[in-house]
Each structure stands twice: as structure tokens, then as C-alpha cells.
């Protein structure tokens, strides 16, 4: 039975068509994947469905009845729920307080905590999503917080549930738990829309697939009858070969060596006596569930965070250096968030490329910038890294996520430093750019550079790394090579090690 139908949805922003006559139909009991690269129009479509945006044309039918949402409240009343990528929760309140917010059971003028707790327990057991009503949300693991988010939607009698990239923050084990819950909900007659660009999970769990490209539907597929190659083709419009990284072992002298590095903040040890090496010609991956000290470890290596312990590049001890001298000693660094720390989005592409090396002779002389040389260099990199940009003078923030990330990678690779540290190389980047960035990193490794990659995407780490270090509660609790580098084993260590099984 068709529960949701979207017909001919069209939405323009300043003349740019974000959705062009999109039709989508989801049956009750079905898990439906909505796929597409960044900028394909998935978010626009889902925001229209959830009442956050108004379509220019087209109609939405729930149970065959035409709907006209002016805000999310209308969508919620029609039985549509959304689990956002970033949770909308009060971290300092308890689970039950979060769940009954704006819908509180009352006893006279007061909130009845007992009734609320009872409500949470019943809701949880009805859907197989049990959760302790009295836990404080900030203390919960990410997977449980997501469960709370799903329960919030269910508490409002949602029959259509949109999940926006729900697995981005989860460990493999948490992800499996989520999938079980999703199947359970579907079996009770709900319709689920899974927004994602991860192909393996689409194949693992969904029934139907709608693929979007450039604001249009580029493929409507039945999961059982399709293949990975067919999905990729619908997403990018051409065939992409899978990444193959030959695993190499290196026994050269370490390029980066970290000894007993610790970071403490307000008495809490965030990075706990971490030691490791990265050698020329190898990619070392750091895995871990977010919140286990990975960003602080990298900040400490870069000199952005005060730390105890030793960091050296080659035989030079750089532990006391500020970031500028660490970079000069031979580190290139691609930070985690390209908008926050990797670029100045309002500045031009050329300015973003030269910044950091603008005092070198190639970019300036006697305190004045050599603008022609800077622009020429930017044009060269734009071409070599196949960045889709009309001009090097455009603000870098006007580029798509993938192209912006390519510029950042290009800048850092071009420094020619013997060590490259990359945080989240392809977060929020489209399939074509992921491929290109991976190839670039592998090519740089093959040239003999030492590369350290931190990523929350395990598939990416497994594809790139020659060795994987797993961080848990501020320590490296596993160093994995060879056949141990598989999802199962890495995932188990990410959860704390063998004893959790």
C-alpha cells in the first residue's frame, strides 16, 4: 500500500533548480533509500517533505490525501518524522525530559515525571528500542542518542520516518543495532526513508532505491535486482572503478614519531600517553568512535593544544614549536572541518591556496604579494586536481563540498612536506571526489611521503591504510595490520576491545 507519494516536486533557488519534477513513492512496510551525491537535491526534497521548504510545484500525498505543509508541525501532524544528522536534544536533561518536551503528561499544573517515565518505557518496549528514562542525555553513547531521536519521532505517532545519514556517527556494531530496529519498524507497517550515500548499507537493508543527480531522479531501482555498479552509475553518471590500495610495509626510519603524548583539560585526561610512528611510504589510519581523543591528539601533534610528551619530525624534536614552525619543519595538515578551520570561505580560491605559503619567495617579495604568480599557481592546481571552478577568483565557499576539499588537499599536498596529516579526508564529499582524493593520497604515499589519516568512516580507513591504530578513551588500544584490518575486528576495538564481546 502506498503510504507516501511525492509528485512532480520542483523547487528553485534564485533561478537554480534544486529539485526538478521529482517523484517518489514509498509503500508501507518499506525501507526506501534516497541516494545521490552532495548537491544532488536530497536535502531539499526531504526539507520539502518535512515542511521546512515550500515547493514551487508538485504535490505531496499521504495515504492518498493531498497535503500542504507550511511548517514541520503540519508534517508531524500528518505522521512524518525526521531523524536529523545532528541531534536536536537537550544534553543536560534526562531522556524522559527530552522525550515529552512540549507534550508533557500533567498532574494539575505540574509535569508528572512518573507518567512520563512510564510513557518512555512503554514506547521503548513497543518498538524494541529500550532506553533508560532517567539517563542524562550527555552521558549516552551516540547510538543511544540516536535511538532517543527515533523515539521522539515515534512518540508523535510517525508513520513515515526520514533518517538523514544516520550511520555517519555510528560504530559498525551500533549501525547493526540501528538496522535491526529499522527492520522492526518496517515490519510494523511504517515507511522509512534512508538518506545516504553509502552503497553497502543500501544494499544491506533497503527494498527500493531512488537515486538523484543534479536535481532529477536518475534512477529508480529495486534493491534485490540491482548491483553496486548500477547504483554508482546512476549517482555519478559514469562507471567508477573501486579503489584498490596496495598495502605496503615500510621499514624506513620514522618520519613522524610521537612519544607518550598526553593532553589534559581541567583535570580530565583526553589523550593518554599515546606513542606511535609514521614512516615514509606508508599510510597510517587512526580509527575510533568520536569523542575518544582523536582530534585532540592531532591538535597536540600540530601544536594547537598544550600537551606533555614528545613529537619529532625526522630527528628534529618539535615538541616546543608553535604551529608555524611545525609546518615549516615538514608537516602538511588538512584539518577536519573545511569551513571552520580549513579555509576562509569568503576569500577567493587563489587566496585560500596561497595562504600559509604567502611569505615564500614564490608568492611574495619584499612584503608585497605577487598576485599574478599566485593566480597562475591557483589555476595550475585547479586544473591538476580537476576542481570544478569557473575562476580562481571566486570565493571558495561557492564551491561544492567535494571541490572545496580538493582545493584544501591540493594546497597541502603542494607544500611538498614529507609528512601529511589528514583529518576526515572525504567527509561530506561526493563519490567522484572521494575517489580522486583517495588516489591522490595513495599516489603521494607511493612517492615516499608519510601520511597519517584520521577518519570516522571505517570503509575509508580500510581502503587507504597500511596500518590502523584504534583510539579508545584517549589511548591507542589496538595496532592492526594485515588480515586484522577488517570491519569486524576494528569495530570491536573501537568499542573498547575484546572484553565487550
Amino acid at each position, binding site marked *: 500500500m502506498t503510504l507516501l507519494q511525492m509528485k512532480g516536486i520542483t523547487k528553485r*533557488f*534564485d533561478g537554480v533548480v534544486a529539485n526538478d519534477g521529482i517523484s517518489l513513492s514509498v509503500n508501507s512496510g518499506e525501507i526506501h533509500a534516497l541516494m545521490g551525491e552532495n548537491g544532488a537535491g536530497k536535502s531539499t526534497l526531504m526539507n520539502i517533505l518535512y515542511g521546512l*521548504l*515550500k515547493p514551487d510545484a508538485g504535490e505531496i500525498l499521504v495515504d492518498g490525501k493531498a497535503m500542504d505543509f507550511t511548517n514541520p508541525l503540519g508534517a508531524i501532524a500528518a505522521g512524518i518524522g525526521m531523524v536529523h544528522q545532528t541531534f536536536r536534544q537537550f544534553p543536560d536533561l534526562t531522556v524522559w525530559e527530552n522525550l515529552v518536551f512540549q507534550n508533557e503528561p500533567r498532574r494539575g499544573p505540574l509535569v508528572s515525571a512518573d507518567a512520563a517515565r512510564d510513557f518512555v518505557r512503554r514506547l521503548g518496549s513497543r518498538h524494541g528500542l529500550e532506553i533508560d528514562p532517567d539517563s542524562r542525555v550527555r552521558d549516552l553513547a551516540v547510538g543511544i542518542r540516536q535511538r532517543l531521536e527515533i523515539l521522539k519521532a515515534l512518540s508523535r505517532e510517525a508513520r513515515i520516518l526520514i533518517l538523514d545519514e544516520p550511520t555517519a556517527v555510528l560504530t559498525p556494531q551500533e549501525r547493526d543495532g540501528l538496522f535491526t530496529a529499522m527492520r522492526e519498524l518496517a515490519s510494523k507497517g511504517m515507511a522509512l526513508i534512508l538518506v545516504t550515500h553509502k552503497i553497502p548499507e543500501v544494499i544491506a537493508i533497503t527494498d527500493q532505491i531512488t537515486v538523484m543527480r543534479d536535481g532529477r531522479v536518475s534512477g529508480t531501482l529495486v534493491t534485490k535486482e540491482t548491483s553496486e555498479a548500477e547504483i554508482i552509475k546512476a549517482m555519478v553518471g559514469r562507471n567508477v572503478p573501486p579503489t584498490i590500495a596496495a598495502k605496503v610495509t615500510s621499514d624506513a626510519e620514522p618520519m613522524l614519531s610521537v612519544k607518550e603524548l598526553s593532553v589534559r583539560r581541567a583535570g580530565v585526561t583526553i589523550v593518554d600517553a599515546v606513542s606511535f610512528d609514521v614512516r615514509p611510504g606508508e599510510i597510517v589510519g587512526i580509527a575510533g568512535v568520536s569523542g575518544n581523543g582523536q582530534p585532540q591528539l592531532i591538535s597536540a601533534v*600540530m601544536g*594547537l593544544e598544550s600537551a606533555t610528551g614528545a613529537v619529532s619530525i625526522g630527528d628534529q624534536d618539535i615538541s616546543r614549536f*608553535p*604551529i*608555524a614552525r611545525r*609546518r*615549516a619543519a615538514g608537516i602538511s*595538515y588538512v*584539518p577536519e572541518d573545511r569551513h*571552520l*578551520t*580549513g*579555509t*576562509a*570561505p*569568503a*576569500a577567493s580560491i587563489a*587566496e585560500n591556496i596561497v*595562504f*600559509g605559503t*604567502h*611569505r615564500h619567495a614564490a608568492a*611574495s617579495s619584499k*612584503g*608585497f*604579494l605577487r*598576485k599574478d604568480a599566485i593566480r597562475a599557481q591557483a589555476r595550475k592546481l585547479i586544473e591538476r586536481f580537476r576542481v570544478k571552478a569557473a575562476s580562481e577568483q571566486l*570565493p571558495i*565557499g561557492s564551491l561544492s563540498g567535494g571541490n572545496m576539499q580538493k582545493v584544501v588537499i591540493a594546497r597541502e599536498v603542494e607544500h611538498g612536506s614529507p609528512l601529511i596529516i589528514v583529518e576526515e579526508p572525504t567527509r561530506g564529499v561526493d563519490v567522484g571526489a572521494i575517489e580522486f582524493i583517495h588516489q591522490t593520497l595513495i599516489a603521494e604515499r607511493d612517492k615516499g611521503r608519510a601520511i597519517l589519516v584520521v577518519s570516522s568512516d571505517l570503509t575509508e580507513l580500510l581502503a587507504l591504510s597500511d596500518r590502523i591504530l584504534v583510539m579508545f578513551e584517549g589511548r591507542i588500544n589496538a595496532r592492526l595490520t594485515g588480515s586484522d584490518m577488517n570491519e569486524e575486528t576494528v569495530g570491536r576495538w573501537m568499542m573498547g576491545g575484546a572484553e565487550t564481546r
Partner: protein
Amino acid sequence: MIAAALDTKSRLAAILFSIVAAVLLGGLVVGLTGANPISVYLEIAKGAVLGRGLDETLARSVPLVGMALAAAIALRAGLVNLGGDGQMLIGGLAAALVALYVPVPGVARAVLALAAAICAGGLYAWLAAILQLSLGIPFLIASLLFSYIARGLTSYLVRYPLRDPATGMPETYRVASGARLPAHIFDLPVSMAMIVMAVVAIVIVVNDRSGVNGFEWRMTGLNARFAQYSGVNLSRQTQRVAFLSGALAGLVGALLILGQQYRFTDGALLAPGYTWSGLMAAVLAMASPIATIVASVFFAALQVGGFSMERALGLPAVLTWVLQALIILCLAARPILFRKR
């Protein structure tokens, strides 16, 4: 910063739109008082550029451009300097002290006085920056509050220890004529203060467009964390930019004392409100130095025209302040007026 991501074209459109909207709203205000808006605007325009008006506009542009650029270079690097008043006072006082009491020949005394003002204003702003860097007191707040300290301090000094008992006013002695800045050079309608300010303005514009330092400051203003990650020493840069911003404000104080007022009179430096007009010009120009200069000359003309209009029509010149404020308000309102759903 307001709409920092806007490109140049839409920024210009936004500024023009705000000016037009402000003129219309201002006209409405004038109309409500029963006067004819068109003749008011005509008088303002005539008064600003015709006859002596042009000279007055140019003279008023010097301090206004100076204070606007002082605000703009800080704003460009992500610092909000609200302490222009204090830095100007301290700079002006330093200039007056050197010009009055340092026993060197005339011209050398003037040069020393300017240098003293630059150092004093700069150090005064630098102190506020140090408070931000060491104690976490925001520069915006510290610089503003330092103005009150400067006001109290200078007011006390010119009322008691430095007072010229011959006048009935709280003011210092007059600066010897040898140490004053000439109001006319080679009998041209160009003062020494204008030349000094023109040189400063050119240096700032060139540094912003092609200087390595200007580039670092601008990138820091656009994204301080990116600048830090790329190796900029933010603490050192904050101190440097604060010093330069304050130094320029101090220089403005000295130019006013040595080129116009010839003595430090309590309240005289602040009465025309150069700091706040300058801040508004810098905000209107979104801290681009060239646009800041254009905006502050425009404001100077508006103010001079306002006085002329007051003389001609008897309407208060405060109207031009209303106009200035309306322009900024419209500019701030613009992005929301046109926000799309």
C-alpha cells in the same frame, strides 16, 4: 561582520540601496516637521560642496577618514575597536605635552609630538588588547571602557596641573606657532594634516591590497581559526593590529591639536563625534579601506552640508546624524528583508 560573504557587486548594491532607503526615510522625517524634504537635501548638497563648503568638507574629512580607517583596519582583522575616543584623547594629550614642554626647535617639536601621539594612542589600545589576551576581557569592551578612563584623566589634567589660568576654560596653554602644522602649504587650500592623512590612507590601502601583512589580517578577519591553523600567531597579530588602530586614532588627536585647535581643551576633541561617525563609515564600507575612505568623506560632506542647511533653513543639523544612522540601519536590515524561504 554584516554580510561578509557578499561579493563586491551585491555589496555595492546593498550600500546604494541603504543610502536611497535612508534618504527616503529621512525625507519622511523632514516632511513630518512640515519642511520640504527636497529643499533640505538641496541645501545639504550645496552646503557641502559649494564655496567654503568644499574646504570645510575636506578639513572635516581628515579626522573622519582617520578615525574610520582606525576602525576599519581593526575590523578587517576581526577586532572591534570601540575605544577610538580614548586613544584619540591620549594621543592628543601626548602631542600637546610634547609641543608645549619639550625644548627643541619648532619643526622637530611638531614631528616629535606626532610620534608621541602615535605611540601613546597605540600603547593605549595595546593595553586593551593585552587584557583580552591575558584575562579574556573582550577587546570590544576593554577598549570602550578605557575611553572613560582617558576622558577622566585628561579632564583632570587640563583642569588642574596643565591648566592655562589666563582663560576661563579647562584647557592647556597654546602651542607655540613653530610647532603647529601649517593650514596651507604653498598658499594652496591643502593643510599639512591633509597630506599626512593622505599618506597614511595610501599606505593602508596598498597594504590591504597587496601587502603580506594586510593579506594575513584580512584572512584572519574572515576566519581566525583558519589563520591560526595556517601558522599565523594570533596573539602577536592582535597586539600589532590593536596598536596600529590606536596609533592612528592617536595621530588624529595630534593632527587636530597641532593643526586646528592649538591647545588641548577638555571635551573639544570628542564633541564632533569623529569616532562614531568613523565606525559607522567603516561598517558601511564593510571595512574595505577604499570604501571606508569614500564613506567617511561622504559623511563629512553630509555633516558640513547639515550645518549649512541649519544656517539656511533653521532646521537642526542633527538631521544628518539621523541620516547616517538610518543608512547603517538599512544596511544591517537588508539581508533579512530579502531572505528567501
